[in-house]
């Protein structure tokens, strides 16, 4: 029984219990709300971190697609490179020294490695970081024996690009180097590239990057807070994929024939620079794109020093420039074929009518010199003997408009559309252009244009394509360098059919006349390339040319090679075999002097090797 006094004693407290209970309920309610917020509404975020916490992702790089030539010879493939990655968060205090001594690093290298690690922001410390790439066998052996004691380290085998033909065809094939910030930004798929990845930077490697690349995979392992891998452990709550196999890139087969490329390389040995293009006249498939000199793709992919870059850009033979399509030249006398066709088509002159060449022609006060005195020549003979005087006489009657129109029909002054690397358009000057730039139009401009000088600029590739159109009866093709693309399983994923750019619109008999004339350039004793003919071998037809060089004085005046750099370029462009044309070509020997003496022997000897050898029955 409770007495009154006792009730009074505890009475002071009575009023408080309700408030206290309310307070307690509110506070616990608040905690429950907070727990609900974290567990129910933010669950995905925290789960993600929890899974990241206990997984370490090892990248499995994709094998880049292989590039082969038309006969299946490997042009670009991969070899293993051993790269060392570290997860900075898991590095112990003396691990850097350990790694340094295993790798045989100098004191200085060790310190810079330590600094690099120390400067990492915390958010990056849980991600793998590449420490070394392409380590040698000794370093690999040293690291692998101690790998168990260094949980932060991973050695990853990465395929590295390898070019069996070294520098041959480097402009076309291209090279890879490390991705930069812009690449990462530009890439539509953020996971496609990571810092340290390599990306096709030029040539086919760049053009077909998306196909060649493949896609990386990964393997995840479960680790504890110290980064120790717990083999065979897989918590039920881990909802992530543990393994994604890498998908190799597509393989590419070229239309290029590396045997032909090698033949050009041998034939060009006496000359420091030049270019050659060979195309199939029936398809536009490019058999050779040869440019000399070349850079070393391995050197380019490791990143050039400023000094080395200056050396390359300062080299008078311009190794960085693809001379088959990025550089333009005067076509010289090879252009006479176009002028001749313009005159024939529009029936401006009677081709049988003869003109007397006295070795030079005086127009107004200017005297234009021919290469020799040809006496009386008609159109046919003037092609064979490359008489300028005939063409000057002709030019006055044909006019610059007709020449330009036919040159355009044959694909000059426009990109061929080969689709690899940057391509120059070249240039054909018009009457309006001369008036705008020189104030007035003079007949001399037409005369120069008619023989491929003046302001006419062409690429070696354009000239080869134009000759293919002459050889095949008037079809101008789009040049193509890729024959097909194969998926990793070997199935064809894409084949490239011939693409016609246009019919040039020149009558067959006129083209036939030109073909016969080009044949006689080589076969007739009076022909400018007679001395380059293949005796009892493959008949080669073509037009010689000698392109003047715009003086380079002032740039390399001091150089002992200055005299050489002022020499004219030698051209030879045509088709073979002469009787039944299969391929068209254009060969340019920079500073080779006369085309008949420099370029024509290269073309005839390479065609001899290429077309007389039996088709190989097996691939290498």
């Amino acid at each position, binding site marked *: 029984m409770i007495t009154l006094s*006792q009730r009074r004693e505890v*009475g002071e407290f009575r009023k408080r219990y309700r408030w*206290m209970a309310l307070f307690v309920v509110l506070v616990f309610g608040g905690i429950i709300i*907070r*727990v609900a917020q974290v567990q129910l509404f933010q669950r995905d975020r*925290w789960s993600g971190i*929890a899974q990241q*916490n206990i997984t370490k992702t090892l990248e499995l790089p994709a094998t880049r697609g292989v590039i082969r030539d038309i006969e299946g010879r490997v042009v670009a493939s991969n070899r293993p490179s051993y790269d060392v990655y570290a997860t900075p968060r898991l590095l112990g205090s003396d691990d850097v020294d350990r790694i340094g001594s295993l790798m045989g690093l100098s004191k200085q290298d060790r310190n810079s490695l330590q600094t690099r690690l120390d400067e990492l922001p915390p958010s990056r410390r849980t991600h793998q970081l590449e420490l070394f790439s392409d380590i040698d066998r000794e370093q690999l052996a040293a690291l692998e024996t101690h790998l168990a004691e260094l949980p932060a380290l991973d050695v990853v085998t990465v395929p590295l690009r390898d070019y069996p033909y070294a520098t041959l065809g480097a402009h076309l094939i291209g090279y890879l180097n490390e991705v930069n910030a812009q690449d990462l930004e530009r890439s539509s798929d953020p996971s496609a590239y990571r810092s340290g990845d390599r990306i096709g930077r030029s040539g086919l490697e760049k053009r077909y990057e998306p196909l060649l690349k493949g896609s990386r995979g990964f393997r995840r392992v479960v680790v504890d807070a110290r980064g120790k891998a717990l083999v065979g452990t897989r*918590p039920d*709550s881990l909802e992530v994929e543990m393994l994604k196999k890498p998908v190799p890139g597509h393989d590419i087969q070229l239309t290029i024939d590396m045997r032909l490329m090698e033949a050009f390389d041998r034939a060009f040995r006496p000359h420091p620079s030049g270019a050659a293009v060979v195309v199939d006249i029936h398809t536009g498939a490019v058999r050779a794109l040869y440019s000399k000199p070349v850079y070393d793709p391995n050197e380019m992919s490791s990143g050039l020093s400023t000094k080395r870059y200056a050396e390359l850009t300062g080299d008078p033979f311009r190794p960085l420039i693809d001379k088959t399509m990025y550089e333009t030249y005067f076509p010289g006398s090879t252009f006479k074929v176009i002028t001749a066709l313009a005159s024939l088509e529009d029936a401006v002159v009677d081709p049988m009518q003869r003109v007397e060449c006295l070795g030079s022609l005086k127009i107004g006060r200017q005297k234009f010199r021919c290469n020799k005195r040809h006496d009386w020549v008609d159109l046919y003979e003037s092609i064979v003997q490359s008489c300028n005087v005939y063409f000057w006489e002709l030019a006055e009657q044909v006019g610059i408009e007709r020449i330009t129109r036919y040159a355009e029909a044959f694909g000059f002054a426009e990109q061929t559309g080969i689709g690899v690397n940057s391509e120059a358009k070249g240039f054909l000057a018009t009457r309006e252009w001369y008036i705008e730039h020189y104030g007035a139009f003079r007949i001399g401009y037409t005369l120069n244009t008619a023989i491929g000088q003046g302001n006419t600029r062409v690429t070696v590739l354009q000239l080869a394509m134009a000759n293919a159109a002459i050889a095949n009866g008037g079809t101008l093709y789009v040049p193509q360098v890729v024959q097909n693309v194969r998926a990793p399983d070997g199935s064809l994923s894409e084949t490239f059919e011939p693409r016609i750019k246009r019919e040039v619109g020149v009558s067959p008999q006129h083209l036939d006349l030109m073909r016969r004339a080009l044949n006689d350039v080589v076969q007739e004793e009076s022909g400018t390339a007679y001395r380059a003919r293949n005796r009892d071998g493959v008949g080669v037809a073509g037009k010689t040319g000698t392109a003047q060089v715009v003086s380079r004085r002032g740039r390399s005046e001091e150089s002992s090679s200055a005299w050489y750099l002022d020499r004219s370029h030698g051209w030879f462009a045509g088709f073979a075999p002469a009787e039944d044309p299969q391929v068209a070509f254009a060969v340019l020997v920079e500073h080779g002097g006369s085309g008949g003496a420099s370029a024509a022997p290269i073309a005839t000897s390479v065609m001899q090797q290429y077309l007389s050898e039996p088709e190989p029955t097996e691939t290498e």
Partner: protein
Amino acid sequence: MAIGRTIRDDFDWPLFIAVSTIALFGVLNLYSATEGGRTSDAYVQQLYWLILGFGVAGLTVAIDYRHFERYGWVIYGACILALVLVFGLGRSVRGSTRWIALGGFSLQPSELMKIGLIIALAKYLHHDTKTGGRTLADLIIPGLILALPMALVLLQPDLGTAMVLAFIFASVMMLTQLKMRSVVTLLATFVVAAPVTWFYLLKDYQKERITAFWDRIGGTQTDLLDSGWHTHQSLVAIGSGGLTGKGFTQGTQTRFRFLPDQHTDFPFPVWAEEHGFLGAVLLISLYLFLVLWALRIASQAKDRFGAVVAVGVGAMIFWQTVVNRGMVSGLLPVVGMTLPLFSYGGSSLLSTMLGLGLLMNVSMRRFSH
């Protein structure tokens, strides 16, 4: 004879069941948290402590709490003495001296001090039967009763326990009819005292934790590896538990050692990770019930001593629970506070069981004379 009748008739089954359930959950959770690790037998030790704890609680229940009232000052004095002894005989762990070795065990006198303080305050208020409004002057003696042990605990230093002592005091004093004017004055004092505490009393590591807390609240947290790391990993554990949890012994944060002090200060994240929101709510509800039940016992107590003891024990459990939960869920800075009954640790468990024994004692003797 009297005891026998009381146990039969008035044994507080809800209190006993709630306490036992929480303690059982605690042992299971401890097993999960330490399984496969270096301290994998911790749950066995905890079981021993629990048995000892129930024994101590049983003894406490057996003695009429009015005897505790009679020897109130003696108990209080003994606790103070133990606190003083810490400085002479204490063992230093991680920069603070809190433990004294007692045979094979190490005892934490600051834990016992919580009970000592509750008893002392109860005894004082039992005899100070003022019913009208209380003023600040009435707080002077109880304030001194608090100040002495609190100062000793702060010297160790043990910020968490000092806070609990202050919270127990504040809660108990809220029972009395304190005048509004006095409450306002107290708050003002606190506002003045806070910066003084910050600049002169807190150690650097304590300040660091509080700064880390504010940084996270403000979203300016920069380095997860330092002070904010514990709370971050704790949130990862709780958050990734989701609605139903990852399952018993399946918590990855726990098993792969991302949680710091997972069996002492951070057992709740372990529980929440493995049992999810449902498990967390169940556990929180048990604590809520326990605290509300303590208030109910207080309201039914037959005298002021019993009422104050019940409120004091309820407050002790309430504040430790709230601070621990707030800390692991990122609402409060990390101060080092155990979760009563649930955390691993003998002293904490013993003092909690002592308190719960007193609570049961008050509950069972509400009708007796």
